[in-house]
Protein backbone atom coordinates (compact mmCIF):
# COMPACT_ATOMS: atom_id res chain seq x y z
CA UNK A 1 0.00 0.00 0.00
CA UNK A 2 1.68 3.12 -1.24
CA UNK A 3 -0.43 5.36 0.97
CA UNK A 4 0.42 3.45 4.13
CA UNK A 5 4.09 3.45 3.20
CA UNK A 6 3.96 7.19 2.72
CA UNK A 7 2.21 7.52 6.08
CA UNK A 8 4.87 5.42 7.77
CA UNK A 9 7.58 7.51 6.13
CA UNK A 10 5.88 10.63 7.45
CA UNK A 11 5.73 9.24 10.97
CA UNK A 12 9.38 8.19 10.76
CA UNK A 13 10.54 11.72 10.01
CA UNK A 14 11.76 13.36 13.24
CA UNK A 15 10.63 16.73 11.94
CA UNK A 16 7.09 15.48 11.42
CA UNK A 17 7.16 13.68 14.76
CA UNK A 18 7.90 16.95 16.53
CA UNK A 19 5.42 18.83 14.38
CA UNK A 20 2.62 16.34 15.03
CA UNK A 21 3.33 16.33 18.75
CA UNK A 22 3.10 20.11 18.90
CA UNK A 23 -0.03 20.05 16.72
CA UNK A 24 -1.79 17.61 19.06
CA UNK A 25 -0.83 19.58 22.18
CA UNK A 26 -2.03 22.84 20.66
CA UNK A 27 -5.12 21.27 19.09
CA UNK A 28 -6.24 19.91 22.46
CA UNK A 29 -5.44 22.90 24.67
CA UNK A 30 -6.45 25.87 22.51
CA UNK A 31 -10.20 25.03 22.48
CA UNK A 32 -10.23 24.76 26.29
CA UNK A 33 -9.55 28.46 26.66
CA UNK A 34 -11.57 29.12 23.51
CA UNK A 35 -14.69 27.72 25.17
CA UNK A 36 -14.41 30.20 28.06
CA UNK A 37 -13.71 33.09 25.68
CA UNK A 38 -16.67 32.29 23.44
CA UNK A 39 -18.91 31.97 26.48
CA UNK A 40 -17.75 35.39 27.66
CA UNK A 41 -18.22 36.93 24.21
CA UNK A 42 -14.51 37.60 23.98
CA UNK A 43 -13.93 35.52 20.86
CA UNK A 44 -11.66 38.18 19.40
CA UNK A 45 -9.53 38.54 22.52
CA UNK A 46 -7.13 35.93 21.17
CA UNK A 47 -6.54 38.09 18.09
CA UNK A 48 -5.72 41.10 20.21
CA UNK A 49 -3.29 39.10 22.32
CA UNK A 50 -1.76 37.61 19.18
CA UNK A 51 -0.94 41.04 17.80
CA UNK A 52 0.72 42.02 21.05
CA UNK A 53 2.65 38.75 21.02
CA UNK A 54 4.18 39.82 17.72
CA UNK A 55 5.80 42.78 19.46
CA UNK A 56 7.09 40.30 22.01
CA UNK A 57 8.61 38.19 19.23
CA UNK A 58 10.45 41.23 17.92
CA UNK A 59 11.56 42.21 21.42
CA UNK A 60 12.90 38.72 21.99
CA UNK A 61 14.69 38.94 18.66
CA UNK A 62 16.15 42.32 19.60
CA UNK A 63 17.31 41.03 22.97
CA UNK A 64 18.76 37.91 21.36
CA UNK A 65 20.78 39.77 18.78
CA UNK A 66 21.88 42.36 21.35
CA UNK A 67 23.15 39.56 23.57
CA UNK A 68 24.84 37.92 20.59
CA UNK A 69 22.92 34.66 20.88
CA UNK A 70 23.41 32.54 17.79
CA UNK A 71 19.99 31.83 16.42
CA UNK A 72 18.72 35.40 16.64
CA UNK A 73 15.22 34.27 17.39
CA UNK A 74 16.00 31.95 20.31
CA UNK A 75 14.28 34.42 22.64
CA UNK A 76 11.37 35.08 20.28
CA UNK A 77 8.89 32.68 21.85
CA UNK A 78 9.76 33.62 25.45
CA UNK A 79 9.41 37.25 24.37
CA UNK A 80 5.99 36.48 22.91
CA UNK A 81 4.91 34.79 26.14
CA UNK A 82 5.92 37.80 28.23
CA UNK A 83 4.34 40.37 25.91
CA UNK A 84 1.16 38.33 25.48
CA UNK A 85 0.70 37.95 29.25
CA UNK A 86 1.26 41.67 29.86
CA UNK A 87 -1.06 42.58 26.98
CA UNK A 88 -3.79 40.22 28.16
CA UNK A 89 -3.71 41.56 31.71
CA UNK A 90 -3.87 45.12 30.34
CA UNK A 91 -6.88 44.25 28.20
CA UNK A 92 -8.56 42.66 31.22
CA UNK A 93 -7.95 45.74 33.38
CA UNK A 94 -9.37 47.98 30.67
CA UNK A 95 -12.37 45.68 30.31
CA UNK A 96 -12.96 45.82 34.05
CA UNK A 97 -12.97 49.62 34.05
CA UNK A 98 -15.86 49.96 31.70
CA UNK A 99 -17.31 48.60 28.55
CA UNK A 100 -17.53 51.71 26.40
CA UNK A 101 -13.83 52.28 25.92
CA UNK A 102 -12.98 48.58 25.89
CA UNK A 103 -13.12 47.95 22.16
CA UNK A 104 -11.17 51.08 21.39
CA UNK A 105 -8.48 50.03 23.86
CA UNK A 106 -8.46 46.60 22.24
CA UNK A 107 -8.03 48.23 18.82
CA UNK A 108 -5.10 50.29 20.11
CA UNK A 109 -3.42 47.11 21.28
CA UNK A 110 -4.05 45.42 17.91
CA UNK A 111 -2.40 48.17 15.91
CA UNK A 112 0.27 48.93 18.46
CA UNK A 113 1.20 45.27 18.57
CA UNK A 114 1.67 44.86 14.82
CA UNK A 115 3.37 48.22 14.32
CA UNK A 116 5.64 47.68 17.32
CA UNK A 117 6.65 44.28 16.01
CA UNK A 118 7.57 45.55 12.56
CA UNK A 119 9.41 48.53 14.02
CA UNK A 120 11.42 46.53 16.53
CA UNK A 121 12.38 43.80 14.08
CA UNK A 122 13.87 46.55 11.87
CA UNK A 123 15.85 47.94 14.81
CA UNK A 124 17.09 44.41 15.53
CA UNK A 125 18.59 44.32 12.05
CA UNK A 126 15.94 42.12 10.48
CA UNK A 127 13.14 42.80 8.04
CA UNK A 128 9.44 42.30 8.28
CA UNK A 129 10.01 39.12 6.27
CA UNK A 130 11.64 37.61 9.37
CA UNK A 131 8.27 37.91 11.07
CA UNK A 132 6.48 35.88 8.40
CA UNK A 133 7.10 32.63 10.25
CA UNK A 134 5.34 34.08 13.27
CA UNK A 135 2.54 35.68 11.27
CA UNK A 136 1.61 32.48 9.47
CA UNK A 137 3.18 29.75 11.59
CA UNK A 138 6.26 27.65 11.11
CA UNK A 139 5.44 24.25 12.51
CA UNK A 140 7.75 22.58 10.00
CA UNK A 141 10.75 24.07 11.79
CA UNK A 142 10.01 23.22 15.40
CA UNK A 143 12.97 22.27 17.54
CA UNK A 144 12.91 19.87 20.47
CA UNK A 145 13.12 22.93 22.75
CA UNK A 146 9.88 24.16 21.16
CA UNK A 147 8.30 20.80 21.88
CA UNK A 148 9.24 20.96 25.56
CA UNK A 149 8.03 24.56 25.87
CA UNK A 150 4.75 23.67 24.16
CA UNK A 151 4.26 20.61 26.36
CA UNK A 152 4.85 22.64 29.51
CA UNK A 153 2.45 25.41 28.54
CA UNK A 154 -0.17 22.93 27.33
CA UNK A 155 0.04 21.07 30.66
CA UNK A 156 -0.51 24.35 32.51
CA UNK A 157 -3.46 25.36 30.31
CA UNK A 158 -5.11 21.95 30.55
CA UNK A 159 -4.42 21.61 34.28
CA UNK A 160 -5.98 24.94 35.23
CA UNK A 161 -8.53 25.13 32.42
CA UNK A 162 -10.00 21.72 33.28
CA UNK A 163 -9.21 21.68 37.01
CA UNK A 164 -10.94 24.98 37.74
CA UNK A 165 -13.74 24.38 35.27
CA UNK A 166 -16.58 24.88 37.79
CA UNK A 167 -15.29 28.30 38.87
CA UNK A 168 -14.31 29.39 35.38
CA UNK A 169 -17.68 28.23 34.08
CA UNK A 170 -19.50 30.20 36.78
CA UNK A 171 -17.45 33.29 35.96
CA UNK A 172 -17.99 33.00 32.21
CA UNK A 173 -21.64 32.11 32.44
CA UNK A 174 -22.81 34.87 34.78
CA UNK A 175 -20.16 37.21 36.11
CA UNK A 176 -22.58 39.15 38.35
CA UNK A 177 -23.75 35.99 40.05
CA UNK A 178 -20.18 34.77 40.42
CA UNK A 179 -19.42 38.03 42.22
CA UNK A 180 -22.50 37.72 44.45
CA UNK A 181 -21.53 34.16 45.28
CA UNK A 182 -18.18 35.28 46.64
CA UNK A 183 -15.83 33.95 43.98
CA UNK A 184 -12.55 35.90 43.65
CA UNK A 185 -13.63 37.52 40.40
CA UNK A 186 -10.61 39.67 39.71
CA UNK A 187 -8.13 36.87 40.32
CA UNK A 188 -10.11 34.51 38.10
CA UNK A 189 -10.45 37.13 35.35
CA UNK A 190 -6.71 37.70 35.33
CA UNK A 191 -6.14 33.95 35.38
CA UNK A 192 -8.30 33.59 32.26
CA UNK A 193 -6.43 36.44 30.57
CA UNK A 194 -3.03 34.93 31.39
CA UNK A 195 -4.07 31.46 30.25
CA UNK A 196 -5.45 32.92 27.01
CA UNK A 197 -2.10 34.66 26.50
CA UNK A 198 -0.21 31.40 27.05
CA UNK A 199 -2.55 29.63 24.63
CA UNK A 200 -1.88 32.26 22.00
CA UNK A 201 1.89 31.98 22.50
CA UNK A 202 1.73 28.21 22.15
CA UNK A 203 -0.56 28.21 19.13
CA UNK A 204 1.54 30.83 17.37
CA UNK A 205 4.07 28.23 16.24
CA UNK A 206 1.39 26.16 14.55
CA UNK A 207 -0.87 28.62 12.75
CA UNK A 208 0.77 32.00 13.27
CA UNK A 209 -0.36 35.18 14.97
CA UNK A 210 -2.92 36.05 12.30
CA UNK A 211 -4.77 32.75 12.59
CA UNK A 212 -4.13 31.97 16.24
CA UNK A 213 -7.64 32.73 17.39
CA UNK A 214 -9.08 30.33 14.83
CA UNK A 215 -7.67 27.34 16.74
CA UNK A 216 -9.30 28.58 19.93
CA UNK A 217 -12.65 29.56 18.47
CA UNK A 218 -13.56 27.45 15.41
CA UNK A 219 -13.53 24.04 17.21
CA UNK A 220 -15.83 25.55 19.85
CA UNK A 221 -18.10 26.94 17.14
CA UNK A 222 -18.35 23.43 15.67
CA UNK A 223 -18.89 21.77 19.05
CA UNK A 224 -21.68 24.07 20.12
CA UNK A 225 -23.66 23.08 17.04
CA UNK A 226 -24.01 19.58 18.43
CA UNK A 227 -23.55 19.68 22.21
CA UNK A 228 -26.17 20.34 24.86
CA UNK A 229 -23.89 20.85 27.85
CA UNK A 230 -20.89 23.02 28.55
CA UNK A 231 -18.78 20.01 29.40
CA UNK A 232 -19.66 18.25 26.14
CA UNK A 233 -18.93 21.42 24.17
CA UNK A 234 -15.46 21.66 25.63
CA UNK A 235 -14.65 17.96 25.19
CA UNK A 236 -15.93 17.87 21.62
CA UNK A 237 -13.97 21.02 20.78
CA UNK A 238 -10.78 19.45 22.15
CA UNK A 239 -11.25 16.35 20.00
CA UNK A 240 -12.04 18.43 16.91
CA UNK A 241 -9.06 20.70 17.57
CA UNK A 242 -6.64 17.80 17.79
CA UNK A 243 -8.16 16.09 14.75
CA UNK A 244 -7.95 19.10 12.43
CA UNK A 245 -4.41 19.93 13.58
CA UNK A 246 -3.14 16.40 12.90
CA UNK A 247 -5.03 16.03 9.62
CA UNK A 248 -4.06 19.48 8.38
CA UNK A 249 -0.40 19.02 9.20
CA UNK A 250 -0.35 15.56 7.57
CA UNK A 251 -1.87 16.98 4.39
CA UNK A 252 0.99 19.46 4.15
CA UNK A 253 3.48 16.57 4.29
CA UNK A 254 2.12 15.40 0.94
CA UNK A 255 1.21 18.73 -0.64
CA UNK A 256 3.17 21.95 -0.44
CA UNK A 257 0.65 24.00 1.48
CA UNK A 258 0.92 26.35 4.42
CA UNK A 259 0.24 24.20 7.53
CA UNK A 260 -1.50 26.97 9.47
CA UNK A 261 -3.79 27.94 6.64
CA UNK A 262 -4.56 24.30 5.84
CA UNK A 263 -5.55 23.57 9.43
CA UNK A 264 -7.79 26.62 9.66
CA UNK A 265 -9.47 26.04 6.29
CA UNK A 266 -10.03 22.41 7.28
CA UNK A 267 -11.64 23.49 10.57
CA UNK A 268 -13.93 25.97 8.82
CA UNK A 269 -14.80 23.27 6.29
CA UNK A 270 -15.81 20.95 9.13
CA UNK A 271 -17.92 23.76 10.57
CA UNK A 272 -19.72 24.21 7.25
CA UNK A 273 -20.35 20.48 6.87
CA UNK A 274 -21.64 20.08 10.43
CA UNK A 275 -23.83 23.17 10.15
CA UNK A 276 -25.34 21.91 6.90
CA UNK A 277 -25.69 18.29 8.00
CA UNK A 278 -27.06 18.99 11.45
CA UNK A 279 -30.71 19.23 10.42
CA UNK A 280 -30.43 15.81 8.75
CA UNK A 281 -29.24 14.16 11.96
CA UNK A 282 -31.28 16.15 14.42
CA UNK A 283 -32.85 13.89 16.98
CA UNK A 284 -36.58 13.48 16.46
CA UNK A 285 -38.74 15.91 18.37
CA UNK A 286 -39.44 14.84 21.91
CA UNK A 287 -42.43 12.62 22.19
CA UNK A 288 -43.79 14.67 25.04
CA UNK A 289 -44.99 18.23 24.75
CA UNK A 290 -42.12 20.53 25.75
CA UNK A 291 -44.55 23.12 27.07
CA UNK A 292 -45.34 23.28 30.72
CA UNK A 293 -48.75 22.13 31.74
CA UNK A 294 -49.46 25.41 33.46
CA UNK A 295 -52.75 27.03 34.12
CA UNK A 296 -53.46 29.93 31.78
CA UNK A 297 -53.43 33.37 33.31
CA UNK A 298 -55.83 34.45 30.64
CA UNK A 299 -59.41 33.58 31.35
CA UNK A 300 -61.09 32.69 28.12
CA UNK A 301 -64.53 32.63 29.64
CA UNK A 302 -65.96 34.77 32.35
CA UNK A 303 -67.65 33.27 35.35
CA UNK A 304 -65.49 30.23 36.01
Amino acid at each position, binding site marked *: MAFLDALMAMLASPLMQRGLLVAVLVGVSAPVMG*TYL*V*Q*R*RLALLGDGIGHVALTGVAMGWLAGSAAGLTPHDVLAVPGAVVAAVIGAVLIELVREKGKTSGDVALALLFYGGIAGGVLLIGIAGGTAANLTGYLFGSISTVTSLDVWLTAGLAALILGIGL*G*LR*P*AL*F*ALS*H*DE*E*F*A*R*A*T*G*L*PIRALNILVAVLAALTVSVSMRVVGVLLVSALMIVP*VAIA*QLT*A*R*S*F*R*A*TMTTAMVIGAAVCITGLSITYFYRLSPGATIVVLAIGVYAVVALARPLFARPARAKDPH*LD*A*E*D*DVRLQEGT
Partner: protein
Amino acid sequence: MPDASQPPIRTQKLSVSVETGTILHGIDLTVTDGEAVALLGANGSGKSTLIKAMVGIVPITSGSAEIFGADITAARRSVPWSRIGYVPQRLGPSSGVPATAVEVVASGLLHNRRLRTGRATRKKALEALDQVGLADRAHDSVQVFSGGQQQRVLIARALVRDPDLIILDEPLAGIDRASKEALARTLARMRGNGTTVLVVLHELGELAGMLERAVVLRHGRVIFDGLPPSAAPGHDHPDHDHVHAHADTAPPGHTVPDLRSEW
Protein backbone atom coordinates in the same frame (compact mmCIF):
# COMPACT_ATOMS: atom_id res chain seq x y z
CA MET B 1 -14.99 35.29 61.46
CA PRO B 2 -18.30 37.13 61.59
CA ASP B 3 -20.33 36.82 64.75
CA ALA B 4 -23.24 34.43 64.41
CA SER B 5 -25.51 36.85 66.24
CA GLN B 6 -24.97 39.59 63.67
CA PRO B 7 -27.96 40.56 61.53
CA PRO B 8 -28.07 39.03 58.05
CA ILE B 9 -28.13 42.49 56.48
CA ARG B 10 -27.14 45.87 57.83
CA THR B 11 -26.49 48.93 55.73
CA GLN B 12 -25.35 52.23 57.19
CA LYS B 13 -25.63 55.45 55.21
CA LEU B 14 -25.20 53.42 52.06
CA SER B 15 -24.93 55.60 48.96
CA VAL B 16 -24.35 54.62 45.36
CA SER B 17 -23.46 57.16 42.70
CA VAL B 18 -22.80 56.72 39.02
CA GLU B 19 -21.66 59.24 36.44
CA THR B 20 -25.18 60.40 35.80
CA GLY B 21 -26.12 60.99 39.42
CA THR B 22 -26.77 59.49 42.82
CA ILE B 23 -28.95 56.37 42.80
CA LEU B 24 -29.08 55.70 46.54
CA HIS B 25 -28.91 58.37 49.25
CA GLY B 26 -27.71 57.13 52.64
CA ILE B 27 -29.78 53.98 53.08
CA ASP B 28 -29.97 52.64 56.66
CA LEU B 29 -31.55 49.21 56.65
CA THR B 30 -31.24 46.30 59.02
CA VAL B 31 -32.86 42.95 58.35
CA THR B 32 -32.88 40.71 61.39
CA ASP B 33 -32.54 36.96 61.52
CA GLY B 34 -35.57 35.11 60.18
CA GLU B 35 -37.36 38.19 58.85
CA ALA B 36 -39.16 38.22 55.51
CA VAL B 37 -38.86 41.69 54.02
CA ALA B 38 -40.20 43.17 50.79
CA LEU B 39 -38.25 45.96 49.14
CA LEU B 40 -40.81 47.92 47.17
CA GLY B 41 -40.72 50.94 44.92
CA ALA B 42 -41.45 52.19 41.45
CA ASN B 43 -39.19 51.52 38.50
CA GLY B 44 -35.99 53.47 38.95
CA SER B 45 -36.43 53.94 42.69
CA GLY B 46 -33.14 52.17 43.34
CA LYS B 47 -34.36 48.90 44.85
CA SER B 48 -32.43 46.60 42.51
CA THR B 49 -29.33 48.75 42.90
CA LEU B 50 -29.64 48.46 46.67
CA ILE B 51 -29.54 44.67 46.71
CA LYS B 52 -26.81 44.61 44.07
CA ALA B 53 -24.77 46.89 46.31
CA MET B 54 -25.45 44.56 49.26
CA VAL B 55 -24.01 41.56 47.46
CA GLY B 56 -21.06 43.42 45.97
CA ILE B 57 -22.15 43.64 42.32
CA VAL B 58 -22.56 47.42 42.36
CA PRO B 59 -19.73 49.39 44.02
CA ILE B 60 -20.70 51.34 47.12
CA THR B 61 -19.79 55.03 46.92
CA SER B 62 -20.02 55.77 50.63
CA GLY B 63 -21.40 54.16 53.76
CA SER B 64 -21.27 50.43 54.33
CA ALA B 65 -23.12 47.17 53.82
CA GLU B 66 -22.61 44.23 56.13
CA ILE B 67 -23.70 40.66 55.57
CA PHE B 68 -23.78 38.66 58.82
CA GLY B 69 -21.55 41.33 60.32
CA ALA B 70 -18.86 41.27 57.62
CA ASP B 71 -18.36 44.43 55.57
CA ILE B 72 -18.75 43.41 51.94
CA THR B 73 -16.28 46.00 50.69
CA ALA B 74 -13.64 46.18 53.42
CA ALA B 75 -13.77 42.51 54.41
CA ARG B 76 -15.00 40.84 51.24
CA ARG B 77 -12.98 37.71 51.94
CA SER B 78 -14.47 37.14 55.36
CA VAL B 79 -18.08 37.49 54.25
CA PRO B 80 -19.78 34.11 54.75
CA TRP B 81 -20.80 33.95 51.10
CA SER B 82 -21.95 30.36 51.33
CA ARG B 83 -24.82 31.49 53.60
CA ILE B 84 -26.23 33.88 50.96
CA GLY B 85 -28.37 32.88 48.02
CA TYR B 86 -28.80 35.55 45.36
CA VAL B 87 -31.41 35.28 42.61
CA PRO B 88 -30.94 37.86 39.84
CA GLN B 89 -33.83 39.03 37.75
CA ARG B 90 -32.83 37.33 34.53
CA LEU B 91 -30.12 35.20 33.06
CA GLY B 92 -28.11 37.36 30.67
CA PRO B 93 -28.32 36.85 26.93
CA SER B 94 -26.85 33.56 25.86
CA SER B 95 -23.45 33.46 24.22
CA GLY B 96 -24.24 30.31 22.29
CA VAL B 97 -22.18 27.92 24.40
CA PRO B 98 -24.75 25.50 25.75
CA ALA B 99 -25.04 24.75 29.46
CA THR B 100 -27.45 22.32 31.08
CA ALA B 101 -29.67 23.20 34.02
CA VAL B 102 -27.55 20.94 36.26
CA GLU B 103 -24.36 22.74 35.22
CA VAL B 104 -25.86 26.16 35.93
CA VAL B 105 -27.31 25.09 39.29
CA ALA B 106 -24.03 23.43 40.31
CA SER B 107 -22.27 26.79 40.04
CA GLY B 108 -24.39 27.84 43.03
CA LEU B 109 -22.30 25.50 45.19
CA LEU B 110 -19.18 27.60 44.72
CA HIS B 111 -18.09 30.42 46.99
CA ASN B 112 -15.01 32.22 48.16
CA ARG B 113 -13.53 29.15 49.83
CA ARG B 114 -14.64 26.72 47.21
CA LEU B 115 -13.56 26.94 43.56
CA ARG B 116 -14.35 23.36 42.65
CA THR B 117 -17.53 21.40 43.12
CA GLY B 118 -17.42 18.27 45.25
CA ARG B 119 -18.63 14.74 44.74
CA ALA B 120 -22.23 15.24 45.78
CA THR B 121 -22.62 18.11 43.30
CA ARG B 122 -24.83 16.33 40.86
CA LYS B 123 -27.13 14.96 43.54
CA LYS B 124 -27.49 18.35 45.21
CA ALA B 125 -28.14 20.10 41.90
CA LEU B 126 -30.80 17.56 40.97
CA GLU B 127 -32.46 17.99 44.37
CA ALA B 128 -32.54 21.76 43.94
CA LEU B 129 -34.03 21.40 40.45
CA ASP B 130 -36.58 18.99 41.85
CA GLN B 131 -37.64 21.63 44.38
CA VAL B 132 -38.50 24.00 41.53
CA GLY B 133 -40.11 21.27 39.45
CA LEU B 134 -37.51 21.03 36.73
CA ALA B 135 -35.98 17.65 37.57
CA ASP B 136 -37.09 16.16 34.27
CA ARG B 137 -35.32 18.90 32.29
CA ALA B 138 -32.12 18.82 34.31
CA HIS B 139 -29.97 17.76 31.38
CA ASP B 140 -31.44 20.08 28.79
CA SER B 141 -29.68 23.24 27.74
CA VAL B 142 -31.06 26.30 29.53
CA GLN B 143 -30.86 28.15 26.20
CA VAL B 144 -34.08 26.48 25.08
CA PHE B 145 -35.91 27.21 28.35
CA SER B 146 -38.71 29.75 28.58
CA GLY B 147 -38.25 32.86 30.71
CA GLY B 148 -40.14 31.32 33.62
CA GLN B 149 -38.15 28.10 33.43
CA GLN B 150 -34.86 30.01 33.31
CA GLN B 151 -35.91 31.89 36.40
CA ARG B 152 -36.60 28.65 38.23
CA VAL B 153 -33.10 27.53 37.32
CA LEU B 154 -31.78 30.73 38.89
CA ILE B 155 -33.83 30.06 42.03
CA ALA B 156 -32.51 26.49 42.18
CA ARG B 157 -28.98 27.87 41.82
CA ALA B 158 -29.56 29.91 45.01
CA LEU B 159 -31.34 27.05 46.84
CA VAL B 160 -28.63 24.48 46.16
CA ARG B 161 -26.27 26.03 48.70
CA ASP B 162 -28.96 25.91 51.39
CA PRO B 163 -28.66 29.60 52.28
CA ASP B 164 -29.50 31.30 55.59
CA LEU B 165 -30.34 34.48 53.68
CA ILE B 166 -31.98 34.57 50.27
CA ILE B 167 -32.13 37.75 48.21
CA LEU B 168 -34.40 37.81 45.16
CA ASP B 169 -34.64 40.53 42.51
CA GLU B 170 -38.17 40.91 41.12
CA PRO B 171 -38.95 37.18 41.13
CA LEU B 172 -42.57 37.71 40.12
CA ALA B 173 -41.82 39.63 36.93
CA GLY B 174 -42.86 37.88 33.76
CA ILE B 175 -43.83 34.45 35.09
CA ASP B 176 -47.22 32.77 35.13
CA ARG B 177 -49.48 32.55 38.13
CA ALA B 178 -48.82 28.91 38.95
CA SER B 179 -45.09 29.67 39.07
CA LYS B 180 -45.71 32.68 41.30
CA GLU B 181 -47.73 30.58 43.71
CA ALA B 182 -45.13 27.86 43.74
CA LEU B 183 -42.42 30.43 44.43
CA ALA B 184 -44.53 31.71 47.34
CA ARG B 185 -44.70 28.17 48.74
CA THR B 186 -40.98 27.63 48.36
CA LEU B 187 -40.19 30.88 50.14
CA ALA B 188 -42.77 30.19 52.87
CA ARG B 189 -41.15 26.82 53.49
CA MET B 190 -37.69 28.37 53.64
CA ARG B 191 -38.96 30.94 56.08
CA GLY B 192 -40.38 28.14 58.17
CA ASN B 193 -36.86 26.73 58.34
CA GLY B 194 -35.54 30.05 59.62
CA THR B 195 -34.17 31.46 56.37
CA THR B 196 -34.14 35.23 56.15
CA VAL B 197 -35.84 36.51 52.99
CA LEU B 198 -35.30 39.84 51.24
CA VAL B 199 -37.25 40.21 48.04
CA VAL B 200 -37.41 43.12 45.61
CA LEU B 201 -40.93 43.50 44.30
CA HIS B 202 -42.98 45.82 42.20
CA GLU B 203 -46.11 44.73 44.01
CA LEU B 204 -46.62 42.16 46.74
CA GLY B 205 -48.86 39.92 44.66
CA GLU B 206 -48.65 36.24 45.51
CA LEU B 207 -46.00 36.85 48.17
CA ALA B 208 -48.22 39.14 50.28
CA GLY B 209 -49.09 36.38 52.72
CA MET B 210 -45.57 35.53 53.78
CA LEU B 211 -43.95 38.96 54.03
CA GLU B 212 -44.03 40.65 57.41
CA ARG B 213 -42.28 43.91 56.65
CA ALA B 214 -42.11 46.27 53.72
CA VAL B 215 -39.44 48.84 52.94
CA VAL B 216 -40.44 51.29 50.24
CA LEU B 217 -37.89 53.28 48.26
CA ARG B 218 -38.56 56.41 46.29
CA HIS B 219 -35.88 58.36 44.44
CA GLY B 220 -33.18 56.43 46.26
CA ARG B 221 -34.45 57.06 49.79
CA VAL B 222 -36.42 54.94 52.24
CA ILE B 223 -39.85 56.54 52.52
CA PHE B 224 -41.63 53.78 54.41
CA ASP B 225 -40.55 50.95 56.67
CA GLY B 226 -43.20 48.94 58.46
CA LEU B 227 -46.00 46.47 58.02
CA PRO B 228 -46.64 45.54 54.40
CA PRO B 229 -49.38 47.56 52.78
CA SER B 230 -52.60 45.68 52.50
CA ALA B 231 -52.94 43.75 49.29
CA ALA B 232 -56.40 45.15 48.73
CA PRO B 233 -56.83 47.94 46.18
CA GLY B 234 -56.44 51.38 47.70
CA HIS B 235 -53.36 50.72 49.81
CA ASP B 236 -50.73 53.41 50.21
CA HIS B 237 -48.24 51.73 47.93
CA PRO B 238 -46.72 54.46 45.75
CA ASP B 239 -47.85 52.91 42.49
CA HIS B 240 -50.84 50.85 43.31
CA ASP B 241 -53.05 51.85 40.43
CA HIS B 242 -52.98 48.53 38.65
CA VAL B 243 -55.70 45.96 38.95
CA HIS B 244 -54.94 43.26 41.46
CA ALA B 245 -56.33 40.47 39.40
CA HIS B 246 -55.19 37.69 41.68
CA ALA B 247 -55.25 39.37 45.05
CA ASP B 248 -57.84 36.88 46.16
CA THR B 249 -55.68 33.88 45.38
CA ALA B 250 -53.12 34.51 48.08
CA PRO B 251 -54.85 34.36 51.43
CA PRO B 252 -52.61 35.83 54.12
CA GLY B 253 -50.78 33.43 56.35
CA HIS B 254 -51.20 30.42 54.14
CA THR B 255 -48.72 27.81 55.16
CA VAL B 256 -48.18 25.26 52.48
CA PRO B 257 -45.15 23.19 53.35
CA ASP B 258 -45.75 20.92 50.38
CA LEU B 259 -42.51 21.60 48.54
CA ARG B 260 -42.78 20.32 45.07
CA SER B 261 -46.36 20.37 44.04
CA GLU B 262 -47.40 21.73 40.72
CA TRP B 263 -44.79 24.23 39.62
